[in-house]
């Protein structure tokens, strides 16, 4: 221990260069951990978004694309499914429940999703958790809406308030369905999923606001008031996608095949888990590239330690000789120099952790608001500890290089002091 207190004092004496090295280690460690945490949490958040759903069905496109637009509200559907096909498939003997999803409109940047009451009953997220109401209840009438938690919180909406839905999914839309406002009847509890950022309305509501629309445009001269629309048949002609729960999971592949082979319309059914896995495989390339870069950044930090230690070594030969004269063994010298590298990296790692948590606290609400990703501020995970351990071990290995040189010097120099 005597040697480590020496190492510490020696570093303190070179506090300027030492703190620069510390800074680079701390930054690189926090970068590495930050990237790792983002990766894990974004995966968690994706994986937690959908649970207990056996199949996701949409128009034929790609599995990842279907999953992204139907469940994560990312991107847009390429095509719709006819209501007839939906009805037919939902009556399939092996199907327990279905949730229709109709997308395409928005409210102040939040997606509006048309669905039915089954959604509140069957949709599950995380570990098979059902949606619960913070206030109010599911919609029952055509012009009623249930808000995700974030929508209500960010926009300050309360029960009983009327909201206007805009046409299209953009953040700013020039065409508003302002003749048919929806009344907020329910606000959901937070789920940490895209549900929080969704405005839920009945399928009939979606149909009603488009009653005087045709082919994506409002028909000129044709206006149908909200009340008039109610008189009409509001059965939708098409939906964007639907979620399927089966009576038995064993039937999953059979039903999937049947839907994929559906004759009347080209459909695609995917298992959410499988599609997620495909998504991971896709982004793993980018993740790995990012990981490699951050690992290299840490390597640069560690090489910084090496540089500083090696550069100081020659001018420290006198110090080594003095230490030898008072009884330090060459092994002590090795320990002193290696210990300094270890101390640098340990303090650097600690600072890096500090930096990570400071960064998380600062960025948490921003990331949640802009990317819908909740980054929990918890203790480092086992994997993160492993990473830190690896950084520390590399520091020791790297520290052995100047340590060994100092050891060789002290063997060669003995007590003779060379200037």
């Amino acid at each position, binding site marked *: 221990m005597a040697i480590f207190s020496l190492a510490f*004092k020696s570093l303190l*004496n070179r506090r300027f260069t030492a703190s620069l090295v510390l800074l680079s280690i701390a930054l690189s460690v926090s970068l590495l951990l930050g990237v790792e945490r983002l990766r894990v949490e974004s995966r968690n958040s994706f994986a937690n978004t959908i649970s207990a759903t056996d199949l996701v069905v949409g128009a034929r496109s790609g599995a990842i694309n279907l999953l992204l637009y139907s469940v994560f509200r990312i991107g847009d559907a390429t095509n719709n499914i006819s209501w007839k096909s939906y009805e037919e498939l939902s009556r399939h003997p092996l199907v327990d429940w279905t949730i229709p999803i109709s997308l395409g409109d928005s409210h102040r940047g939040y997606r509006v999703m048309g669905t039915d009451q089954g959604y509140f009953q069957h949709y599950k997220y995380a570990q098979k958790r059902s949606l619960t109401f913070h206030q109010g209840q599911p919609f029952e009438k055509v012009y009623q809406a249930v808000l995700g938690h974030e929508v209500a919180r960010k926009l300050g909406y309360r029960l009983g308030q009327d909201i206007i839905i805009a046409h299209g999914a953009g953040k700013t839309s020039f065409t508003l369905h302002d003749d048919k406002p929806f009344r907020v009847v329910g606000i959901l509890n937070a789920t940490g999923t895209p549900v929080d950022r969704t405005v839920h309305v009945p399928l009939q509501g979606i149909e009603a606001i488009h009653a005087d629309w045709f082919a994506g445009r409002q028909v000129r001269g044709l206006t149908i008031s909200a009340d008039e629309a109610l008189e009409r048949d509001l059965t939708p002609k098409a939906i964007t996608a639907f979620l399927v729960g089966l009576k038995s999971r064993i039937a999953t592949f059979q039903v999937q095949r049947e839907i994929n082979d559906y004759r009347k319309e080209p459909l695609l059914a995917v298992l959410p888990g499988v599609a997620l896995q495909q998504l991971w495989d896709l982004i793993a390339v980018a993740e790995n590239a990012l990981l490699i870069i951050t690992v290299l950044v840490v390597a640069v930090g560690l090489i910084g330690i090496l540089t500083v230690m090696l550069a100081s070594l020659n001018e420290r030969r006198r110090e080594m000789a*003095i*230490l030898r*004269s*008072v*009884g330090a063994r060459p092994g002590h010298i090795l320990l002193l120099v290696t210990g300094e590298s270890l101390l640098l990296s340990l303090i650097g790692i600690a600072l890096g952790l500090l930096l990570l948590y400071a960064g998380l606290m600062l960025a948490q609400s921003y990331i949640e608001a802009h990317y819908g990703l909740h980054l929990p501020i918890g203790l480092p995970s086992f994997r993160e500890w492993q990473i830190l351990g690896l950084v520390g071990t590399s520091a020791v290995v790297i520290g052995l290089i100047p340590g060994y040189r100092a050891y060789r010097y002290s063997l060669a120099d003995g007590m003779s*002091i060379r200037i």
Partner: protein
Amino acid sequence: MPQTAAIEVRNLRFRWRRELPEVLHIKALEVARGERIFIRGASGSGKSTLLALLAGVNLPSGGDVEVLGETVNRLSSARRDHFRSDHIGFIFQLFNLIPYLSVLDNVTLPCRFSRRRKEKATLSGNTLHDEAMRLLAHLDLADDDLIHRPVTELSVGQQQRVATARALIGAPEILIADEPTSALDSDMRQAFLRLLFQECEETGSTLLFVSHDRQLEVLFEQHIALDEINELAQEGV
């Protein structure tokens, strides 16, 4: 049991590397315990080599070095390092101090490596800190302001006295001073030597004082001229 000599050297030979010629050959050298001995040698006469051999930092290519009855060159390298820190205190010519340690930490440094010296230093019931302060006080360095200054800001004379306190702490049997006064002016040399003698007497240490300064020689009871006892130095002349 008869008291062994402080240092006994028999037929000592040394070469730096196997393929290089020998630089040192001393047939016999004996220093009794408690003696103060002046070893005179011009630079290049093998002074540093002899000291490194006595300290067990270098190993002789022939012959034996016995220190306090222990044949140093037969010990393992770890035991040699231990032996050195337990029994020998060193004062060098210049820059004796570890720059990043305080005055007190510099003085107590040997006690970090030698339990024996730590025990001896605290024998009187003093803490290590007290003992260091006592030694510094003897060397006129107990000034509170002085000991809290970085060692690099001390004058050369002060640095040498701190180094002396470090060499003396834990009362090692042997004190080796390698040109400790060459950086001091002549007034300070005398004062420094007086302090050194006084302390050696108090701790009963054997003093090996190496210098080429003949003016100081008269202050010592025993003198050795290295180029006389080193056979190879004579041949070289």
